[in-house]
């Protein structure tokens, strides 16, 4: 990938430098000007010579002046790094950076740049495993379609008042394939004390386009996204397995930009793990929550376990089907892609997952046992 880009980058910069010279683009010209206009003319040295240049002899000054001039020409990236106007972000500029792994050997902790800690992951894995194996009895189909290396975007349907699908997918892929998954989630997570730290240490990342791009393209890792967002997790039980709008198709655009495939996942089980029966309108805004539900779990476990029961899932069978990766035949690294194309592709992913869900539900004999 890198080798392909090299010639295109060079042509690109030479073109832009030409346009900058002709257009009203001060940077290219400022740089040239530094070459052409001598900083101080000879007459200045006569005018000021002797008084202020105390101990430096003329020869060394002459030499160093030549050096200074030659260093000006060193940097060919200047056009892209000019101050004004700050040029539009070009991915090509960053493409050739070799991402170095964390190099500070003397660190005390193991928290990476995303806030993920392998130590915390290990604890989570041990806590999650019994739930994964015995409570939800997660079953994967087509797991081999998730690539063993390279960036990719996992796109799944979302459900449950406190959605269990994200941790299950993250745990599953890590367990079965040994690859970390960075779960992209709403900004809102970051504002809640304690939750934000736990979530971040376990591999959660804010769903910012830049973050997704960096995870997939620069770090070559897997990112997991739920394009429906809270629209899906807040829906009532009566709407189960009916996918909501897939955002504005941003996830397709990011995958295109990163040059990474989209891998759709159809998840069955999350809807029944914590179904929402009723949404209490007032309390949500009071508590600064996206929604405040009355769940089946509250009614079923609440009397026995109290508030703890609110967080206990029903032991439903989880089935996750991995669909064929979708590759986009577009040039990666562009600032924007045709909106209609993006929306169309997003809609296709949605339809695909929706159809697969219906198929899986047709085959499901029992909610609890699959």
């Amino acid at each position: 990938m890198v080798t392909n880009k090299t010639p295109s980058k060079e042509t690109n910069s030479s073109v832009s430098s030409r346009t900058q010279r002709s257009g009203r683009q001060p940077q290219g010209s400022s740089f040239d000007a530094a070459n052409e206009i001598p900083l101080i003319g000879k007459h200045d040295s006569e005018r000021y010579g002797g008084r202020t240049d105390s101990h430096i002899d003329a020869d060394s000054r002459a030499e160093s002046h030549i050096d200074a001039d030659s260093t000006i020409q060193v940097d060919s990236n200047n056009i892209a790094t000019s101050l004004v106007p700050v040029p539009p972000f070009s991915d090509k500029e960053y493409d050739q950076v070799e991402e170095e792994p964390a190099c500070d050997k003397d660190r005390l902790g193991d928290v990476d740049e995303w806030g993920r800690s392998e130590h915390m992951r290990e604890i989570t894995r041990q806590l999650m495993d019994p739930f994964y194996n015995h409570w939800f009895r997660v079953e994967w189909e087509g797991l081999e379609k998730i690539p063993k290396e390279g960036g990719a975007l996992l796109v799944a349907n979302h459900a449950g008042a406190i959605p269990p699908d994200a941790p299950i997918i993250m745990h599953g892929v890590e367990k079965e394939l040994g690859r970390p998954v960075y779960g992209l989630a709403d900004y809102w997570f970051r504002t809640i004390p304690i939750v934000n730290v736990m979530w971040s240490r376990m591999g959660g990342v804010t769903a910012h386009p830049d973050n997704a791009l960096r995870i997939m393209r620069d770090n070559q890792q897997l990112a997991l996204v739920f394009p429906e967002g809270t629209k899906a997790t807040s829906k009532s039980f009566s709407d189960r397995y009916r996918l909501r709008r897939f955002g504005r198709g941003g996830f397709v655009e990011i995958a295109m930009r990163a040059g990474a495939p989209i891998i759709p996942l159809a998840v069955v089980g999350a809807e029944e793990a914590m179904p929402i029966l009723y949404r209490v309108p007032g309390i949500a805004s009071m508590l600064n929550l996206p929604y405040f539900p009355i769940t089946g779990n509250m009614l079923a476990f609440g009397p026995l376990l109290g508030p703890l029961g609110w967080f206990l899932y029903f032991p439903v069978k989880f089935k996750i089907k991995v669909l064929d990766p979708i590759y986009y035949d577009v040039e990666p690294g562009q600032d924007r892609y045709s909106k209609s194309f993006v929306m169309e592709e997003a809609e296709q992913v949605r339809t695909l997952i929706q159809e697969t869900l219906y198929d899986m539900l047709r085959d499901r004999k029992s909610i609890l046992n699959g």
Partner: protein
Amino acid sequence: MGRRVLITGVDKFWGGRIAQTLEQDPDFDVILGMGTKEPQVALERAEFVRSDQAYSILSRIVKATHVDTIIHTFVVTNTSEVSSRSLHETNVIGTMNLLAAAGQRGSMVRQVVVKSSSNVYGATENDPTWFREETPRSKPARSRLERSLLDVEQLVKDFAEDNPATVVSMVRCANVLGSEITTPTSANLARTLAPVIVGFDPLMQFVHEQDVVDCLLHLTRKRIPGLYNLAGDEKIPWSEVINICGARIAPIPAYGTMNVASLLVRLGLINFTPEMEPLLRYGRGIDTTRIKRTGFELQHTTAGTVRSFIKAVRLKKNIGNEPQSYIYEHDIEQFFRHSPAIVRN
């Protein structure tokens, strides 16, 4: 013919350090240091000019001395020490006068280097994990410092646009730590009582003071234009910073944070600025790919910066502050620079 450079804030840490380093560089013939107070460090050949904080005298100096380079380090980012009015005067009005002087007719200025701060990005929950130079803020600026820095940057950008023949370089530094500079964060860590907003453990980035000086000099020497982020590699959690420094925790509740914090400040326990509040919640990361592309190499990672800082603090605690070895005296400085009795070779 060497360069003629003017440095602002020579009485402060950055200006003083840069003037000292440039004195060793034969490329620089004339070094002028401007400051509101006397320099705190011994300068050999740099000339000191006193001015008010808004540099009203600057346009005369630029005209008279034909300086070709201005290094503007006197942009205040430590709001715990200055009033709101003085912050505005120093940062916005000072920069405005400086750039007006640099851009006046007959000015020989061909490069302006400005030290800005990563505070311009703010810190909110909507932020990306890494800010690039062109990444916009997620939310409008609320704090005085951020607004003032944004104003400064806007002035610099306008100047660069109006003066295409001038190389304009600007560096946005992450939070600085080092053996000599004092910031609100370094003050907290040095007295080993670190404020923590309960339930938050943000990822932080620090840059070593020497790396900042080196970077400003790198851009000056090579005349590299552009806007650059500068921070140590990697981000580390605030809890790890506290661990490295062996500090105790001053817990501050997540709600009503500023009220409790200002109470602790009143009691003299901690140092807390309005900019620290969002930072201690959400942290901030700035991408330094671009400055590395220019051939600049940082000597310290973020964790390395913290380690080197706390070692210096420990040494100071053991041996006490060094007595001030240098006091600026006008007559003596003038004598050494201009007396015919001095043998110059």
